[in-house]
């Protein structure tokens, strides 16, 4: 039995690629390869998605390329390129721990539980969970979902909160957004819950955006951060410096406007409160 366990452990380690014998820091790796590899989404507009011109773009990607990349380049003293790989809620932590990517830049909520496995950058976006419902539906927010069928994203914090706060709601968890929306459109579920910004993106893409409304106060606090391997404070510091400089110089707000402004992919105006929060994250030089 002991031997079996040892074997399985070895297998798990090998599969995870989790323990390179001669560890190289992320910064050393970037310096050696000249590449920063990020994990991002292909179907989460406007954070990371493939647009109509078939380009892989988005808010999170722009932040990496225009805020973080310059900071790293300054440090290593040469230009680097950004390589993108697809990540999903289920794969993002394994992608990091297996060294397949160096940075997760998508729609990942910073949580204390996740901080036990990975480190997070500053918060680069703030949202909270709400509900997308048909405009005729009676659901008005978390207070009116008891007994209702609610779709949620598998592996999201929203499902977890709902399960704890409204145990009578019938949760249906889908691995991807299109399936969840299909279930909503066909009436399999009464509402789809996700971060407000995700719902805004989904609504904007829907065939008849006017049929759908986003309802309810934020019932969760979802600060999005960029995730990286634990205990790499040099690298994390650079990521944060890049973000802080972008906020300070106004670059962050330009990028925000590009994606979330009235003409952006998903209109989602920056509230005064959130703008102040972003600025206050910037510590003095």
């Amino acid at each position: 039995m002991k031997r079996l366990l040892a074997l399985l452990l070895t297998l798990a380690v090998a599969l995870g690629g989790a323990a390179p014998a001669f560890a190289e820091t992320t910064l050393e790796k970037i310096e050696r390869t000249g590449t920063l590899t990020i994990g991002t989404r292909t179907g989460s507009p406007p954070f990371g998605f493939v647009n109509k011109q078939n380009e892989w773009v988005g808010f999170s990607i722009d932040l990496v390329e225009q805020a973080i990349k310059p900071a790293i380049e300054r440090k290593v003293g040469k230009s680097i390129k950004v390589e993108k790989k697809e990540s999903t809620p289920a794969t993002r932590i394994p992608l990091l721990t297996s060294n397949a990517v160096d940075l997760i830049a998508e729609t990942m909520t910073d949580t204390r539980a996740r901080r036990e496995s990975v480190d997070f950058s500053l918060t680069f976006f703030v949202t909270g969970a709400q509900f997308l419902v048909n405009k005729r539906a009676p659901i008005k927010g978390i207070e009116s979902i008891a007994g209702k069928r609610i779709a949620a994203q598998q592996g999201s914090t929203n499902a977890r909160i709902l399960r704890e706060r409204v145990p009578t709601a019938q949760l249906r968890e889908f691995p991807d957004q299109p399936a969840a929306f299909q279930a909503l459109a066909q009436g399999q579920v009464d509402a789809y819950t996700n971060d407000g910004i995700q719902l805004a993106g989904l609504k904007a893409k829907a065939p008849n955006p006017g049929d759908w409304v986003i309802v309810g106060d934020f019932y969760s606090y979802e600060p999005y951060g960029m995730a990286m391997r634990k205990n790499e404070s040099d690298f994390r510091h650079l990521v944060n410096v890049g973000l802080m400089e972008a906020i300070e110089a106004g670059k962050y707000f330009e990028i925000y406007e590009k994606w979330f402004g009235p003409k952006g992919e998903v209109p989602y105006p920056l509230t005064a409160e959130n703008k102040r929060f972003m600025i206050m994250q910037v510590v003095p030089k």
Partner: protein
Amino acid sequence: MRYEFNWSVLWSGQSGSWLLQGLLTTLEISALAWLLAAALGILSGALRTVPWPPLRAAAAFYVEFFRNVPLLVWMFFWYFGVPPLLPGAVQDWLFNHGAEFWAGMFALGVYHGARMSEVIRSGIQSIPRTQFEASQAIGLSVWQAYRLVILPIAIRLIVPPATNESLNLLKNSSVALTISVAELTFQTRQIETYTARAIEALTAGTLIYLVLCVSIAAVMTRLERRFAIPGLIARVGAG
């Protein structure tokens, strides 16, 4: 950096009960789907060998149609495609009573029924034609010949490939998580979400699948020996 294992996440908090729920759902959906697959497989596999061409063609159509479309597509078909065809009240009842489970069960059962069909057919075709003639000659109808002679022999012959197919069905039941069935793989992901411990959760799931598959294979081997036909299949440990 070295990954630090923390196996306690598997029994702390709700993880244990989630794994158990997931295991039960996996067993439940697989068992029901297996019954459906066995029934459809035996029926269509037998029909593919009967002396009436229209029935043979219908069975062949079922097999080719269902086994050549990916299981994932069938999951979506039964979950998203079929309910709109039902009356509103039935739909609503279904949606409140595990529509995803039934859709997943049908998708698995019908898909694997088509694959099982091929196993049964090859079993039947390995039986000499003269067995069928002998059945006819003593006055059995075609239905009786299949029920009393052909299928009892064929089913004993196909235990090994059928076991294989059954294990595939069990493993494929994890595809049902795409339509929100909270089975074993779903729950291991859930644990991962809550604890951010991917490798531990994955290892637990893998181990459970492994134990399930090995036990099923062992039971089938015993059944095979127990019901072996003397002279047709070597009975291990006997004359």
